[in-house]
């Protein structure tokens, strides 16, 4: 390997890098929507169990606050502790491999370390009870079709400030920085 070889390919690499950056940013600018930018720029997540919302919410008709226990009473809604799943899954309910894994986790009392997808930065104040109970906004308006999905989203999603502001302007709610920032 010659010492000057890397510098020969340098302009090409820079060119490729710039092209990639340009594509990424323009794609980002056009594809910005609920979800926090283009999917490939968002961090990937792996949940401890491939949870199936549709099965529990539609087939079993469970209310959201069975698992997201504080959604109507606190600012945060919470992700379910293993004890909540254990209420039904201490005994196998079906035959799926994923459920077998869950039953094993329940027996071993392994905590379920769910990754939160919609997490806001620490400088933002947001309250679920305010939006869900007081303003009566359906979950799907902010969270999209997650309750109708059969497996967890693969990437972090986020509401952006413009999503919050668009609705606040529409509903004549405060858009003062002090309402949301802290």
């Amino acid at each position, binding site marked *: 390997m010659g010492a000057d070889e890397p510098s020969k390919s340098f302009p090409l690499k820079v060119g490729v890098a710039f092209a990639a950056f340009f594509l990424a940013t323009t794609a980002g600018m056009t594809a910005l929507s609920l979800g926090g930018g283009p999917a490939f720029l968002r961090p990937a997540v792996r949940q401890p169990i491939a949870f199936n919302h549709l099965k529990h919410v539609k087939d079993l008709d469970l209310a959201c606050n069975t698992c997201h226990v504080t959604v109507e*009473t606190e*600012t945060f809604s919470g992700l379910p502790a293993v004890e909540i799943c254990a209420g039904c899954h201490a005994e196998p309910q079906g035959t799926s491999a994923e459920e077998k894994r869950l039953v094993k986790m329940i027996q071993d009392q392994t905590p379920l370390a769910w990754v939160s997808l919609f997490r806001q*930065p*620490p*400088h933002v*104040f947001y*309250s679920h*009870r*305010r939006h869900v*109970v*007081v303003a009566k906004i359906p979950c799907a308006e902010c969270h999209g079709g997650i309750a109708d999905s059969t497996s967890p989203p693969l990437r972090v999603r986020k509401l952006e400030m413009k999503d919050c502001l668009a609705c606040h302007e529409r509903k004549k709610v*405060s858009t*003062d*920085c*002090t*309402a949301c*920032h*802290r």
Partner: protein
Amino acid sequence: MARWGMVIDLDRCTACQACVVACQVENNVAPSNAGQAEAGRAISWLRLVPIQGERRGTRPDLQLIPLPCMHCSHPPCIKVCPVQATKIDHEGLVSQVYSRCIGCRYCTTACPYTVRHFNWKKPEWPAPMEETLSPDVSVRPRGVVEKCSFCHHRLQRAKDKAQAEGRPLKEGDYLPACAESCPAEAIVFGDLDDPRSAVVRLSQSPRAFKLLEELGTEPKVTYLSKGEWGGQV
């Protein structure tokens, strides 16, 4: 809509500094060392500032006054901010959005009360203090300006609680940490647009005055004193 204001009774104040400590803990203000203090880079959202007055009987001629942000109705700081990181909201609070601030420090210069502070370095807490930080107040990074917010995160919580209980906000639901902590009850806080509030009653007292009133900043912090301090900071 409310207009938040504060009254500080200097005749009650014993200069114990409980408010200063309460403020620092409440708002995740990192402690400064002697070197920073000497360089004028110590951060404190609420300080006790010595003001020279006249001697009257046994009364000392030096008065220590608690000095938070005045939350002026005509804040000089917001006029000079080139990026609108500091604004006055509909309830009269002068806000600072740290993620918007570019650290130009025009506002620290413009503020006649010298209550705005620039973060010259990353905040650091001695162990295990960083584990006790409040999640309700964001930790400011190096390179941005910060100041007293009248603990507006407490207003966010108070409104959220009142709405969830289906009732309007009532007097005392929202108090900044300094007002809550004052053992002499020298710091009173409330709605200046509510004629029944204690702040309105007290600010009509003949003892009432404001700091540097002649500048036309219209502070929403009123001081009470029998002495003649004239507001020379």
